[in-house]
C-alpha cells in the first residue's frame, strides 16, 4: 500500500548529497546524580567532539569497549537523546530540530533488549511494532514471515514471547528493526551475548538486507573486533567518546603491519595475573610499543598482546617477562587484527571497559589518577576477583 510507505520531510538546510549520517563536533555530557560514591554528583563525558560521515549504502561500524560512548551516539542519532553541543544529521535532517522527520526513516535494535509483551506471540509482537511505523497489515505480515524464516524463527512465529529463550528473543528483536524498511538502521551490539551460530546468522542477514536495495545504510556498534572486521565497509574506533581512527578495516590494520604483533600466554608461580605496574615495566622495555593483558581465569593464565617496533625486540620482552617471574607458555607472531589496532591506539584491549571520563582530565592514554575503575587486569589473583573478571569476559571471549 503506497500511502503507508510514503514519508514526509522538510529539508531544513542543503545537505551534502549522499550522506546518510553526519555529525559535527558532537558532544554529550551526562550529569550523574549524587550517590554515596559521588556525594556531589559528577559529569561524565560520553561523547567528546565526534565528527563522522557515513555515506548512503554504507555498512559502518563503530568499534569500542564498553563505556566508549557507542550507545550514546546511537541514541542521539535516533532522537532519543539531545546532544550537549554540536549537531547531527540523519538523511540530512537535523536530529534535534526535526526528530519526527528522522524517526520516519530509521529503526533501532539493541542487543540487550528484553523486548515485548509476554502474552503476545512473536508474530503479534512484531506486527504491533510495525504498526507504530504505519506499515499496512499486508506488507507487515508478509515481511514478518519472510524475515522470521531468514533468522530461523519461522516455527516459533506463534510462540508466546514469555516462552522464548534469550537467543530467540534477540532474534525477534532483530527482525523488528527491519520491519519498517528503514533508510538508516542502527544496530547497537546486536549480537551481544549470542552464540556463535546465531550471531553468524544475523550478520549474514544484515549483509543480504543491505544488498537487497542500494541506499540502505547501517550503523553498527560492537566491541567484537571480528564482527567489525568481517561485516563493515568502514570502521571507526571509539574510546572515551572520541573517534581515534576511521577507515576500512584493511587500511586500519595496515597501519600496524610493519610492526610485530605478538600473542603470549603467561602465568606466574603464585597463580596471580599481572598488575598495572608489571605492565608498565614491560612497556618500558626497548622496542615495545604497547602491552595489554587479558586474564583467563579458567586457564589461570594471562594472554598478553604486545606490539613491537620490530622483531628484534622479542628477546627483550621475553627477558622482561622472566624478570617478573612469569612463565611463558606460548608465543606467536600474528597477523594484526582490529583489536591490535585498538591496543595500539589506546593501550587496552577491547574487553576492558572504558575508564570513566570525568571531563576534568584530558589524558587520552593510561588510567586516570584516583577514582576511575581499575583496568580489569586480574592483578588481585584471589578467587572471587578472578571469577568476576571471567564473567565479564565471557561474552568477549566467544
Amino acid at each position, binding site marked *: 500500500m503506497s500511502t503507508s510507505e510514503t514519508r514526509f520531510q522538510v529539508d531544513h538546510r542543503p545537505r551534502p548529497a549522499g550522506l546518510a549520517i553526519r555529525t559535527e563536533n558532537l558532544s554529550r555530557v551526562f550529569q550523574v546524580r549524587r550517590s554515596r560514591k559521588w556525594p556531589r554528583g559528577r559529569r561524565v563525558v560520553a561523547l567528546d567532539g565526534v565528527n563522522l560521515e557515513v555515506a548512503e549504502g554504507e555498512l559502518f561500524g563503530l568499534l569500542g569497549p564498553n563505556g566508549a560512548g557507542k550507545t550514546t551516539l546511537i541514541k542521539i542519532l535516533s532522537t532519543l537523546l539531545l546532544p550537549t553541543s554540536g549537531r547531527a544529521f540523519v538523511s540530512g535532517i537535523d536530529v534535534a530540530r526535526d526528530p519526527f522527520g528522522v524517526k520516519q526513516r530509521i529503526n533501532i535494535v539493541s542487543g540487550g533488549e*528484553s523486548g515485548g*509483551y*509476554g*502474552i*503476545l506471540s512473536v508474530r503479534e509482537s512484531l506486527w504491533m511494532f510495525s504498526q507504530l511505523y504505519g506499515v499496512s497489515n499486508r506488507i507487515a505480515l508478509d515481511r514478518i514471515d519472510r524475515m522470521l524464516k531468514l533468522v530461523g524463527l519461522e516455527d516459533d512465529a506463534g510462540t508466546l*514471547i*514469555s*516462552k522464548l529463550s534469550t537467543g530467540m528473543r534477540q532474534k525477534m528483536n532483530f527482525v523488528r528493526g527491519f520491519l519498517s524498511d528503514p533508510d538508516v538502521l542502527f544496530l547497537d551490539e546486536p549480537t551481544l551475548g549470542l552464540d556463535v551460530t546465531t550471531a553468524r546468522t544475523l550478520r549474514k542477514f544484515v549483509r543480504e538486507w543491505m544488498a537487497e536495495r542500494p541506499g540502505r545504510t547501517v550503523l553498527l556498534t560492537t566491541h567484537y573486533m571480528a564482527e567489525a572486521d568481517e561485516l563493515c565497509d568502514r570502521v571507526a574506533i571509539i574510546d572515551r567518546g572520541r573517534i581515534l581512527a576511521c577507515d576500512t578495516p584493511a587500511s586500519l590494520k595496515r597501519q600496524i603491519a610493519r610492526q610485530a604483533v605478538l600473542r603470549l600466554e603467561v602465568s606466574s608461580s603464585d597463580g596471580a595475573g599481572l598488575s598495572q605496574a608489571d605492565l608498565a615495566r614491560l612497556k618500558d622495555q626497548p622496542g615495545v610499543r604497547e602491552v595489554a593483558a587479558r586474564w583467563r581465569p579458567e586457564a589461570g593464565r594471562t594472554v598478553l598482546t604486545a606490539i613491537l617496533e620490530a622483531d628484534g625486540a622479542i628477546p627483550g620482552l621475553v627477558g622482561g617477562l622472566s624478570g617478573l617471574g612469569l612463565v611463558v607458555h606460548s608465543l606467536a607472531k600474528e597477523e594484526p587484527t582490529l583489536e591490535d589496532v585498538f591496543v595500539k591506539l589506546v593501550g587496552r584491549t577491547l574487553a576492558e571497559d572504558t575508564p570513566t571520563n570525568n571531563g576534568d582530565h584530558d589524558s587520552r592514554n593510561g588510567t586516570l589518577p584516583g577514582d576511575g575503575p581499575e583496568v580489569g587486569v586480574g592483578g588481585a589473583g584471589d578467587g572471587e576477583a578472578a571469577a568476576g573478571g571471567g564473567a565479564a569476559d565471557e561474552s568477549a571471549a566467544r
Partner: protein
Amino acid sequence: MTTSEAALEGKRRTAVGEGVRIFKMAAWLGWQAESNWTDPWLFVIYSVIKPVAGTLILVLMFAVAGRGSAPELFWASYVGNAFYIYVGQLLWGISWVVLGDREHFQTLKYMYIVSPSMGWYLVGRAAAKFFVATIAVLIVLGFGAWALGIPVTVRGVDWALFWPVFLLGIVSTAALGILLAGVSLISSNHGAMAAESLSGALYLLAGVVFPVDVLPGWLQPVSLALPHTYWMEAVRRAVLGHGISPMLQQVSEGQILLILALTTAGMVLAGGGFYRWAETLARRRGLIDQVTWN
C-alpha cells in the same frame, strides 16, 4: 532426577545454616525495599496513610448506616479490621516478591541461582513486611482508642490468650502468602491482583468486620474451616473481652486455640507443599524468568 538435581536436593536438606543466611539477607533486602526508614515519606504511606484510610472507610460505613446498632459491634469490627492489616500486607508482600522481582526487576532468576530454595527468601521478605504492618496496626488501634473511644488499653488485653493466638495467626497468614507466591510463580501478571483479591475474599469469609452468622448458610462451613475466622474471633476476645459472632460464642478459648493450631498446621502444610510443587513446575517449564505483563 538428574544428578545435579539430586545434589541440589542434598544441599537443600543440609543447608539450614544457608537458609538462615538467606533469611537474614532477604529480611534486610525487604527492609530496604519495603520499609525504607530513612525515608519518612514511605513510612507514612505504608504505616499511616493506607491503613488509616482503609479504616476510615469502615468508620464511615458505620456512620452512614450504623445508627442504632450496638457499639460493641463497631468495636469488634474495628479491632478485626485493624488486625486484618497483617493479612493484606503479608499476602501482598510475599506474592509481590515473586512478581516484582520477576517482572519489574527481572532479578528472580538470580535469586534462584544464589538460593537453594526460595522459601527462606520469601519468609525473610515477609519478616520485613511484618514489621511495617505491626506499626500500622498499632497506629490504627491507637487512633481508635484516642479518637473513636474504642476501649482498647494495654492493661485490658488478655496477654496469655493474645500471644499464642497472635503467633498462630501470623504463621497461617504467612503460609497462605507462600501458597499465593506459588500461584504467582506459575501464573502470569494477574497474580498481582490475586493477592488483593484473595485478601478481599478472606475479609468476607473470615468475618473480619461482621459476624459470620450473617453469611448465607452454605458459606458458613467454608468460613468455619479457615484459621482466620478463629484468629479474628480470639484476637477480639483477647483485646476487647468479647467476640463478634453469637455462633462462635459457644466455643471456649481453649477450643479456639486448638482449632486455630490445627487449621494453621493444615495451612502450613498446604502452603509449603503447594509452593514446592509450583517451584518444581516452574523450574521444569522454565517459568522463572517469564515476563508476562502487558
